[in-house]
């Protein structure tokens, strides 16, 4: 079965979505990621969606859900590399993803994670 790989880089987990997301895959990712956070005691998750050029409301909600779950597990989540078309679609769908941190690219995302997870409260 198709799965999205979760890479570990020190205290940060790296998820790169490079295939078309369908609902089952999204749910699987949610499952895998939460268990990986717990297992590795991760402080941050970076989700790279630069290769994702199509998005629906379900995927949008999944991003926001993962971010919320991460926060509960004391782990900051950053979504990076969103394409303009995807951003416009999400806005038009009324999904502004409050609470989700974003960055332009992986580099900026990592920098953001470092500053955020450096804090003791981890929020």
């Amino acid at each position, binding site marked *: 079965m198709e799965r999205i790989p979760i890479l570990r880089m020190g205290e940060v987990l790296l998820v790169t979505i490079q295939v078309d997301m369908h609902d089952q895959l999204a749910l699987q990712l949610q499952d895998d990621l939460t268990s990986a956070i717990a297992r590795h005691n991760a402080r941050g998750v970076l989700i790279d969606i630069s290769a994702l050029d199509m998005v629906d409301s379900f995927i949008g909600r999944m991003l926001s859900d993962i971010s919320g779950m991460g926060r509960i597990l004391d782990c900051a989540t950053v*979504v*990076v*590399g*969103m*394409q*303009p078309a*995807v*951003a*416009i679609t*999400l*806005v*038009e769908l009324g999904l*502004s*993803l409050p609470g*989700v941190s*974003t*960055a*332009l*690219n992986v580099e*900026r*995302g990592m920098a953001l994670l470092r500053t955020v997870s450096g804090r003791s409260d981890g929020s």
Partner: protein
Amino acid sequence: MATSGMIAAVLKKRADELIVKWIANQTATQAQLVRGRVTKDELEQQSRQFLKLLAAAAQGGRASDPDAPDTQALHRYLEEFSRTRVIQGFSSSETANFIFSFKRPLFEALRAESGQNADALATEIWEATEILDALGLHTVTTFQKAREELISRQQRDLLELSTPVVTLWKGILALPMIGTLDSARTQIVMESLLQKIVETGSQIAIIDITGVPTVDTQVAQHLLKTVTALRLMGAECIISGIRPQIAQTIVHLGVDLQGVTTKANLADALAIALQRTGRSIAG
């Protein structure tokens, strides 16, 4: 429709007389010659051409049938005529009057032709009215269409002109908005700004709305959408150039700009943008 052919006969026999009266009629009702948009020669030439085509159409006895080839030629001529008038800046009623002012001379000619036969006269006049009304309506329709084409072309031009995204500093983009914001424009503005953000990897975008005359709920909504889309992509957005009246309107409308950084002018916005990217300007 069956026709006795009196109209065709009149158009042929009294062509010169009709032209003279018609032109007199047109110049009397309209000040166009005074305004110098159309010369008398031009008008006469147009009138003659129309009369020739109308006579040809009436000759076939099917002037009121829009599918007849002669009528179609007449319609084509009128279409071209209305386009010219649009460009010359005539109003729709002035353009329609070109046709309608022909009624009086034609009716007079028909009356002279039919003599004492009131019954025949009434039939002929009714037929002539039908033909001319259809032509007049066609002229107005075409006139309107040509106008709309003109407007939509200008709109497109305006759209292309008015969405420049400029780089103010490394990592700082500015978008000076000028003119009224509507859905179509905001969409294009949003797309070009987001695209530029990706290309340049900029962190901060400043939207300057000094040139936006009015802000209503819809415009505010569009602005908020742009800000949200920028945030989703990982960039920050600052709105600058909000004039006092617009600030009042925004508050009165109950639009929530809480999560958005706003600055009074572009200079302040640039200063805070530099500060956020870890730079500072001396002095």
